[in-house]
């Protein structure tokens, strides 16, 4: 079963607008990560936020984490056509000795030029 679920499942916006995607998860976590996938192939790591952090920035990316609500959001500012991809959140549970990453269902983002 999926640990995380992203919403919306699909999002289309105009180039230059901001895109926000959300991720909810079920169990306590050590860290939450966001990945991007182009063309249905390998995923690329974007950013990691630890369970004791609330917000993190990397370039045009801003991630927030609310452990009380078990949710995270990924904001992409000033979107570009190249940002078109699927975005996944991934979590590793706090169970000792079992830190495998479990991925959410993904948000398919389309940037309209």
């Amino acid at each position: 079963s999926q640990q995380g679920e992203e919403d919306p499942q699909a999002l289309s916006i105009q180039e230059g607008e901001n895109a926000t995607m959300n991720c909810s998860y079920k169990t306590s976590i050590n860290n939450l990560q966001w990945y991007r996938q182009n063309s249905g192939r390998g995923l690329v790591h974007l950013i990691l936020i630890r369970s004791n952090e609330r917000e993190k920035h990397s370039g045009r990316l801003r991630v927030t984490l609310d452990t009380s609500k078990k949710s995270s959001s990924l904001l992409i500012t000033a979107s570009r056509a190249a940002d078109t991809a699927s975005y996944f959140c991934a979590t590793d549970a706090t169970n000792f000795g079992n830190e495998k990453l479990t991925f959410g269902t993904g948000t398919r983002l389309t940037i309209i030029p």
Partner: protein
Amino acid sequence: GAGVSQSPSNKVTEKGKDVELRCDPISGHTALYWYRQRLGQGLEFLIYFQGNSAPDKSGLPSDRFSAERTGESVSTLTIQRTQQEDSAVYLCASSKLGRGAGANVLTFGAGSRLTVL
């Protein structure tokens, strides 16, 4: 190597045949994962290797699926008696940090696309 290498990149097989998919992780990465991704879907965890510890096989969907890894090197995912529902992209990923070491930042291979006719 510089990245995670998977082979073959594409495999078309007939129902009932066995297939082997190979993954070469980044040198020094102690953790290795296999995921399955059906068309338009998310990633489905299959198996997780961490050094010499027993692998976490909890995601393998049936006994037709098996995987091996020798030490911290190459891994092979084997699917016996393939079925049409096995058609998917099989993704391998490796990471520098594994069990008990905190964050696992994964580097993915490009995947092996399996089509079962």
